[in-house]
């Protein structure tokens, strides 16, 4: 496996976007100008082709029958550069830039690069004529570099580096239109909120080093299994490591309580929202938890926490999404909600559930990218207006956008036999399985019922948005002008491709779910995963989705006064949801304001105390000179002689007089 030519050259996948970023940044403003997208397009498509080839190689590779890895792992590594190597013997600290290829990596790579290249192609149409055209493609290339590097990293330090790079790129792209104060604030918020999670992640990496003395994934997993594998009660340090690492995932994947940055990230250009939400950034947290499955499986408490937080987030975001009026914000909250679903799956404490979580990441990437790009297409046509109250009945003017959006919405809602249905069902089945055994079976029972509720809400709010935008009487805002028509081909073709994948990929993977499970079994910690099927769960979730869609149709698909009357009836609940449960206000009051007060106090202390001391020290010599030393420099020879005599007398008194007096 390691000697395969593709694995040896796997560094090309991150290197291509990196080169594109460098070229675009260097030549973009002067030479390339409106051709700035070419390096990025070539790099993204090249990386995507390479990833698909790699997936094929990994899928056909023979598992290594190894004594250590019980199920036969398929993995290969390639050291690109010996980055850090300090010390020797037991305390040796090494962190090479080493890329590893295994089924999980290759699957994520295909998802990132394939969806990424479709988004890049779409962006060439969407961003056309923007002042920062080259800047956009430079940042997107860097983003793809960071994300592929994150997926390929083979030790904790390297994954942390790429983790931070992803955060940086999200900052650059969310704040792309930095002249707008809201965009600048949103990018800052995303960066700072992520930093909170990253701090936990960094502590987790430190803990890994302290406990295991190495940062290499394979070595850590082996040591963890050997040391803590047979324990009936999880060791506290393993639980602590898992929870700290999960902190990073909470930040990056926008889980409660750090979910607040993701909806604000809508301030960036729409392709960026698609990129962040579907293919890259938010899946980093899910990927990370899946990658560290061998650690998480050792601590039922940690997995239960993951599941609980995922469930709470999913329900919370779904409740908020019910009443939002900004189409992109609805989609943003649906992303938060679906990420919650993924974590619910990852937290089931079973290998098959992890596979289900990754399955959902994969299908979600396609239909969420589709939905965002569809929303971008609507926005493009409506002159930047995205408020669902002001637009409506677009299905005749924008048929392609409408029907592809419908495909994405149906997949997201979990309409039977579309991709979202299969992956969501796999997660729900895993949850159902988890209610039968283990210490926390009761918790999982509650999570399962809440997950079902959330699935119904998801179907409802997704189709609420769909019906409001594309159904009913035609409403077109004045800003649209003559733009109110279907988008150009560079924008619609990616939509069609993504729609086909949204419809089909779930079924393909689901019918071959055994195959997917077997395939992912080659990743560390996932060996021996067995798929979970549950026909009752499948029927229930399908029914819930259809009921949700039907209710949405009743309320929004046809003229109805029901929404208004309900909103009137449950006024306070409606407002609470509309105000996003006032998380921003709570954080502002209890965290941001006190911190600002501390910062202001520190600023004053710096100006008055620290700077004051420095100025005092510098003012002292000048002061002494002015009052004491300048007057005696009066130019009189006899005054100088007098000074000398006086000093001589003092000296004589000290040398002779005092000893003589016996002092």
């Amino acid at each position: 496996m390691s000697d395969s030519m593709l694995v040896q050259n796997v560094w090309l996948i991150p290197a291509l976007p990196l080169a594109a970023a460098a070229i675009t940044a260097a030549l973009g403003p002067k030479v390339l100008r409106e051709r700035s997208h070419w390096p990025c397009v070539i790099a993204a498509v090249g990386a995507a082709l390479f990833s698909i080839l790699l997936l094929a190689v990994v899928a056909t590779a023979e598992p290594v029958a190894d004594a250590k890895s019980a199920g036969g792992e398929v993995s290969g590594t390639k050291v690109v550069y010996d980055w850090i190597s300090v010390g020797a013997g037991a305390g040796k600290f090494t962190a090479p830039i080493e890329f590893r290829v295994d089924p999980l990596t290759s699957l994520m790579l295909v998802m990132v690069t394939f969806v990424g290249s479709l988004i890049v192609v779409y962006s060439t149409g969407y961003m056309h004529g923007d002042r920062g055209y080259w800047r956009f493609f430079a940042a997107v290339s860097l983003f793809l570099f960071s994300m592929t590097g994150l997926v390929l990293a083979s030790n904790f330090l390297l994954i942390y580096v790429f983790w931070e790079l992803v955060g940086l790129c999200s900052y650059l792209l969310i704040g792309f239109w930095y002249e707008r104060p809201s965009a600048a604030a949103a990018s800052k918020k995303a960066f700072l909120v992520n930093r909170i999670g990253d701090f936990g992640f960094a502590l987790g990496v430190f803990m890994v080093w302290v406990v295991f003395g190495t940062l290499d994934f394979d070595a850590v997993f082996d040591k963890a299994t050997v040391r803590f594998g047979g324990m009936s009660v999880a060791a506290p340090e393993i639980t602590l490591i898992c929870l700290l690492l999960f902190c990073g995932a909470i930040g990056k994947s926008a889980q409660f309580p750090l979910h607040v940055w993701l909806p604000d990230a809508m301030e960036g250009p729409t392709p960026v929202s698609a990129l962040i939400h579907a293919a890259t950034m938010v899946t980093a947290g899910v990927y990370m938890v899946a990658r560290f499955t061998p650690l998480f499986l050792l601590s039922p408490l940690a997995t239960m926490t993951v599941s609980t937080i995922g469930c709470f987030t999913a329900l919370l975001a779904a409740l908020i999404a019910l009443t939002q009026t900004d189409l992109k914000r609805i989609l943003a909250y649906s992303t938060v909600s679906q990420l919650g679903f993924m974590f619910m799956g990852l937290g089931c404490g079973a290998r098959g559930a992890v596979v289900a979580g990754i399955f959902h990441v994969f299908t979600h990437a396609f239909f969420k990218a589709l939905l965002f790009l569809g929303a971008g297409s609507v926005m493009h046509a409506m002159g930047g207006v995205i408020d669902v109250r002001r637009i409506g009945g677009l299905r005749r003017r924008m048929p392609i956008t409408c029907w592809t959006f419908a495909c994405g919405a149906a997949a997201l809602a979990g309409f039977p036999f579309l991709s979202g249905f299969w992956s969501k069902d796999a997660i729900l089945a895993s949850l159902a399985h988890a209610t039968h055994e283990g210490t926390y079976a009761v918790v999982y029972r509650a999570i399962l019922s809440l997950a079902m509720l959330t699935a119904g809400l998801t179907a409802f709010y997704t189709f609420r948005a769909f019906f409001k935008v594309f159904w009913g009487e035609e409403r077109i805002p004045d800003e649209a002008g003559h733009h109110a028509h279907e988008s150009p081909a560079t924008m619609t073709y990616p939509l069609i491709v993504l729609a086909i994948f949204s419809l089909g990929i779930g079924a393909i993977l689901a019918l071959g779910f055994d195959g997917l499970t077997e395939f992912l079994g080659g990743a560390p910690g996932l060996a021996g995963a067995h798929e979970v099927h549950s026909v009752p769960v499948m029927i229930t979730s399908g029914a819930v989705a259809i009921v949700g869609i039907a209710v949405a149709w009743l309320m929004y698909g046809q003229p109805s006064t029901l929404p208004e009357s309900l909103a009137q009836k449950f006024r306070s609940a409606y407002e609470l949801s509309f105000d996003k449960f006032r998380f921003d206000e709570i954080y502002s009051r209890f965290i941001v304001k006190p911190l600002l007060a501390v910062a202001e106090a520190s600023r004053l202390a710096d100006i008055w105390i620290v700077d004051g001391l420095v100025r005092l020290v510098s003012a002292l010599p000048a002061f002494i000179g002015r009052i004491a030393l300048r007057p005696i420099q009066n130019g009189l020879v006899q005054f100088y002689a007098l000074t000398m005599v006086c000093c001589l007398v003092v000296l004589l008194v000290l040398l002779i007089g005092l000893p003589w007096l016996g002092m």
Partner: protein
Amino acid sequence: MLANYLIVGAILFVLGAVGFLTRRNMIVMFLSAEMMLQGVSLNLVAFSNVWSNWHGQIFTIYILTIAAAEAAIALALVVKLYHRRGSLDVSLWQDLREPDQPAIDDDAEPAASVPAPPAWPTLTPAGVEPRHTDEEIEEATHV
């Protein structure tokens, strides 16, 4: 015996020092400095006699030689300075003081005290009835 020499040397030194500090004529100041040198030389010669060696005497010869050379230079300088200002007063040469310091002029007359204008007695302006106290008013109504 030694003490007498040292006392005379010390008296010479102190006389020279006091002269240097108090006189403003440059030639007299120079003479005073020479007198301090002689006081020191006398000490050295006395110690040379006590210890019965030549060290002190050798020092003294050095001092005399250097004093002679120094006298030539110093007197030449004094002559040049005299040519510049037409006076031997050392306090005329204060140019090396700090730029913002005032020059010290010991010869200036102290500021004459201007007599204050004589304090003539003032009278209450005529034609205005002085204010009466309550008791006076009371008394007036009862008369």
